[in-house]
């Protein structure tokens, strides 16, 4: 699954002033890459990520996802892509508060038309993967921030997307939980999934093989780390502590 952005622009019209949140971004991401996007606040990272995740449409430019032009797809077609091809992890978790962790994880499969039994089985598997096998029936507000983010990651995995995208997944977490989350992303990448994530923190970006720097809606630097720093939470596939 490859990503190819060409001259992507996003313009917000705020009364008289126009905000160029993205001012011509071109970016290629190959299948299996681990890419971090960095940049100061307001530089357009989230705007870029939302377009990459098919949550939003660019004002101009072309976005080929796996060779298919998605910049002009209908709302429903984008919904299907979000459902099947992309797993999205938000900074603020975005779990449904009235559902158990397991039901939250199973939710994307509801819209994929998976039957209930298979759904719950797969959701339980994904929760095991992020080390929360024993927290299935907790509500989001009965979980710690790190645990909530792991539930959100489990949710992003259940439809087996080729790409995982995360907008500051560790932004609301302490360093330790942040490292655990990063270890999970590392593992997912090691399994062959493309990972694109936004971060503010240089040590987290250091885990990525590629770091894209954004400023004022443009890519100013695109560097590849020769040596990937070991992400601190080594025991990645089974973070032991909750």
């Amino acid at each position, binding site marked *: 699954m490859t990503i190819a952005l060409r001259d992507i622009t996003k313009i917000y019209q705020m009364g008289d002033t126009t905000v160029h949140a993205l001012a011509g971004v071109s970016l290629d991401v190959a299948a299996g890459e681990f890419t971090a996007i960095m940049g100061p606040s307001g530089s357009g990272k989230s705007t870029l990520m939302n377009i990459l995740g098919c949550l939003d449409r660019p004002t101009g430019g072309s976005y080929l996802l796996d060779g298919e032009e998605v910049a002009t797809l209908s709302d429903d077609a984008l919904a299907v892509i979000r459902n*099947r091809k992309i797993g999205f992890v938000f900074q603020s978790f975005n779990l449904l508060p*009235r559902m158990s962790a397991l039901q939250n994880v199973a*939710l994307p499969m509801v*819209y*994929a038309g998976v039957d209930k039994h298979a759904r719950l089985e797969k959701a339980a598997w994904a929760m095991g993967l992020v080390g929360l096998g024993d927290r299935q029936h907790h509500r989001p507000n009965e979980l710690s921030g790190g645990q909530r983010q792991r539930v959100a990651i489990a949710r992003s995995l259940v439809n087996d997307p080729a790409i995982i995208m995360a907008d500051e997944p560790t932004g609301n977490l302490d360093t330790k939980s942040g490292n655990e989350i990063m270890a999970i992303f590392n593992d997912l990448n090691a399994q062959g999934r493309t990972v694109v994530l936004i971060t503010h923190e240089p040590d987290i970006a250091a885990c990525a093989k590629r770091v894209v720097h954004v400023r004022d809606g443009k890519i100013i630097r695109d560097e590849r780390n020769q040596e990937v720093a070991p992400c601190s939470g080594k025991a990645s596939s089974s973070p032991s502590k909750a």
Partner: protein
Amino acid sequence: MFWESVLIALEGLKANKMRAFLTMLGIIIGVGAVIAMVSIGMGVRQKVETSIAGLGSNLIIVMPGATTPSGVRLAAGSSTTLTNGDAQAIGREIAGVSAVAPSVQRSYQLVYGNQNWTTNVLGTTPEYLEVRNFAVAAGTIFSSKDIDTRARVAVIGQTVATNLFGEFSPLGQTIRINKAPFRVIGVLEAKGQSSMGQDQDDTVIVPLTTAQERLLGVTWLQNISVQAESPEVIDKVQEDITTLLRTRHRLAPGVPDNFTVRNLAAVMATAQETTSTITLLLGNIAAISLVVGGIGIMNIMLVSVTERTREIGIRKALGATFNNILLQFLIEAVVIGVTGGLIGIGVGMAGSYAISYFAGWNTVVSPISIIVAFGFSVLIGLFFGLYPARKAALLDPIDALRYE
């Protein structure tokens, strides 16, 4: 996917039970009111119909005295323009008449032993039973020979029998009507109340001539009941009677009738029209409350969509399509409508039962009103749920996720 949406919608309602119930209340009251109100209207209609039908089918009534254009009868009962000859002429000369029963009546005191009872004594011919839908429960009706001989025989109604004889059989007993002795030869079958609330069993029937000559001392008639052969010929018979009587009474053209011919089918049609109007009116008033209930659904659904904007954003971000979200909210609205409708049916039926029990009104719960009210509540859920559901389904995922 449809059932998934139903389950999601039910979860949504469960999360806010009190609100769902209060929203439902509008529909419950609306449906209940429609069913109860229509049952009152239908009850009135049924009562009027049965009591008019109870008077006899294809009945035409001829009374002495003129009718003013406004329909008010002048000098009712005191006119002396109808005679036995008129009655016989109607039976003899008019086609399409199956029976003619002339009659006179007056209230008298009845005495049996130490019991006495004041009631209406009716002098008529045996045809009266057929024309007015009476039947003899025990004994017999008098014969035409009894009429010829002015026999002192009587057939009594159930109310009279009970009041004079209690448990005993009145047959063969002698009662005194206005001090003259009459032998009881029959008892009428019970008929209940008339449309005017009169007890139709509180009556005594004696031969016409006996009543005219031995009791009232008159030669004229107070009433001629005519039965037409079929509903189709009623209007023609009514016209022919008018023509015949005008000729017999030698009324010059331009002179108003000195008698009145009334057609019960026409009375029935008017009554039906009136009761239908009443039913429609009551039903419409109740239907307004149903619409108000629907607006309540819309109001609450709009609040709910706004409140759950973030939830909608999350669902859309995870791949929910327009239809998924539309169905979720539409089903919530319809579930409120359907559940409210079902409870409303129960409330409406209980209400109509309570009305008939406590107020003593006749009520008829019609299956049609149930089906219509229920169908309406489903439609109202759909109609008033569609706008909020569409609003939810059209939300942009990014905007919805940003919503605070």
